[in-house]
């Protein structure tokens, strides 16, 4: 019993250390968004000038909105297409199913660098071209397998008898899906959606190859800034984003349990 307590205590301490490691650069990022020096120079001198100039920086703001929009659309498309595909793979038996499932892995397993460059070559060649539409096309393809894998994992815990029970009670396929299956896989769908959002929103590599000037996303802008000339406006926008994400996540946490209830 005492050992259990000690282990629990050590566990908490460990998590605390991990959180410190994870948040150290984030805190620095946030602090530097309020520091006068654009070169992260100390001593720290308080300013909100970077937020003010962020407000003026149309290009950065546009890129941020592009990122948000693309991430949201990607999430919606992935959740819909991915859930449908997961359901089909779960419900039906047919030849070639194993192959289709195996096909989900290359997009996850292939380095983004390769996928991104391949998309660049192909989109360029067939006239899809580059720009926001290409980025969206790419992001959905990247995130889709994550959603299918996560939702399928959730479906593994779904008892097929539930669908059968519903049908035995007279529900048609659509009623079964809407009223029984979807509610059950919801945590998986939400987890998949969060994944898709993250893959898209923080997607730098693929966007980098598919962006065109004027049609870029935040990570691409940030990379350009880091490589070509950095301003703490980047810190400011990142700080705003993490604060908003944190709020959204905590809100989400209230409504469902990540990884399913036990």
């Amino acid at each position, binding site marked *: 019993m005492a050992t259990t307590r000690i*282990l*629990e205590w050590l*566990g908490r301490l*460990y*998590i605390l250390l*991990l959180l410190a490691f*994870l*948040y*150290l*650069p*984030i805190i*620095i*990022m946030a602090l530097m968004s309020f520091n006068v020096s654009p070169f*992260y120079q100390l001593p720290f001198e308080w300013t909100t000038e970077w937020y003010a100039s962020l407000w003026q920086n149309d290009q950065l703001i546009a890129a941020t909105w592009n990122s948000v929009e693309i991430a949201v659309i990607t999430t919606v498309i992935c959740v819909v297409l991915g859930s449908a*595909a997961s359901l*089909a*793979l779960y*419900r*039906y*038996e*047919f030849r070639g199913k194993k192959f289709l499932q195996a*096909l989900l892995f*290359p*997009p*996850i*397993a*292939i*380095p983004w*660098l*390769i996928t991104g*460059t*391949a*998309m660049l*070559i*192909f*989109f360029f*060649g067939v006239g899809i071209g580059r720009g926001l539409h290409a980025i969206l*096309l790419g992001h*959905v*393809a990247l995130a*889709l*397998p994550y959603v299918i894998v996560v939702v399928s994992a959730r479906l593994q*815990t779904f008892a*097929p008898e539930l*669908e059968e029970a519903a049908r035995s009670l007279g529900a048609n396929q659509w009623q079964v899906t809407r009223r029984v299956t979807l509610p059950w896989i919801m945590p998986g769908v939400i987890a998949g959606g969060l994944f898709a959002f993250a893959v898209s929103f*923080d997607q*730098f590599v693929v966007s980098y190859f598919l962006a065109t000037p004027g049609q870029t996303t935040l990570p691409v802008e*940030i990379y350009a800034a*880091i490589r070509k000339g*950095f301003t703490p406006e980047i*810190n400011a926008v*990142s700080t705003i*984003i*993490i604060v908003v*994400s*944190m709020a959204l996540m*905590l809100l989400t*946490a209230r409504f469902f349990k*990540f*990884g399913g209830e036990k």
Partner: protein
Amino acid sequence: MAAATASRNGLRSALPLLAPAYLWLTVAIFLPLSAMVFFSFMTELPLSGKPWAFTLGNYAAFFSQSLYLTLLLASLRLGLEVTLWCVVIGYPAAYVLAKVLKGRSREAIFLLVILPFWSNGLVRIFSWAMVLREGGILDTALNAMLPFKINIDLMYSYPAVIIGLVHSYVPYMVLTCYLTLQAIDDSLIEAGRSLGASRLQVLKRVIIPLSMPGLVAGAALIFVPVVGSFMEPRILGGRTGTFYGTVIEDQFVAVFNWPLGAALSFILLAVVLVILAIASPVLRRAA
């Protein structure tokens, strides 16, 4: 078990649900990859306006210059080391979250751990400079605590690249391991101990094998992008920051030698797939 809730050949029913997702993947992933294979056998891009022909030269370039092999090995090593560190750091955290902490705080802490996921990776990497450089946070903090003077300057070094990458990717490991660990029934742990196994033995023989799918999935999700990474090494690596990924990036972005870039990418892809194929029986055995 796959439920046959409908008649037995389900392809016709499955098709409308599957088609959109797979069409999308075809257009945006499978065709581009095929195109890349194609390009990698060309002398010039057709759209460059210059005459082009088929060649094996781009692949030959890989083998004729030791440079590429050296860099590929360096990148594989980097991927391996980062993955290992992520396991070492992330797995215990996932374990504590899934099995030690109880109650309401757990979900919140879990979300806190994976939250950095949703913040920008590049900025986080960039912020590490502040910590790692001489006169940075780490240096200052350690010198404030230690009685003697030491010089901590990790910036622009291989360890800096490792730290930055581990920081970026450890949440993946926590996430995938947490999901599998949480699914392990506590009664299995109890069963193990009732049979005389100590906590450590239960961990080794029951918990780790059962969470293997999460570990392997996490490892793949980390290893793969790290092997191809170019941004983090460039920012944190300094003069040691040249890797296989940076060379590929150069071919596409700077040098404009897409065929060579494609060939190099495809070689990396082949190597990664071989490695995953070797690892996949482990996955299957654990599942």
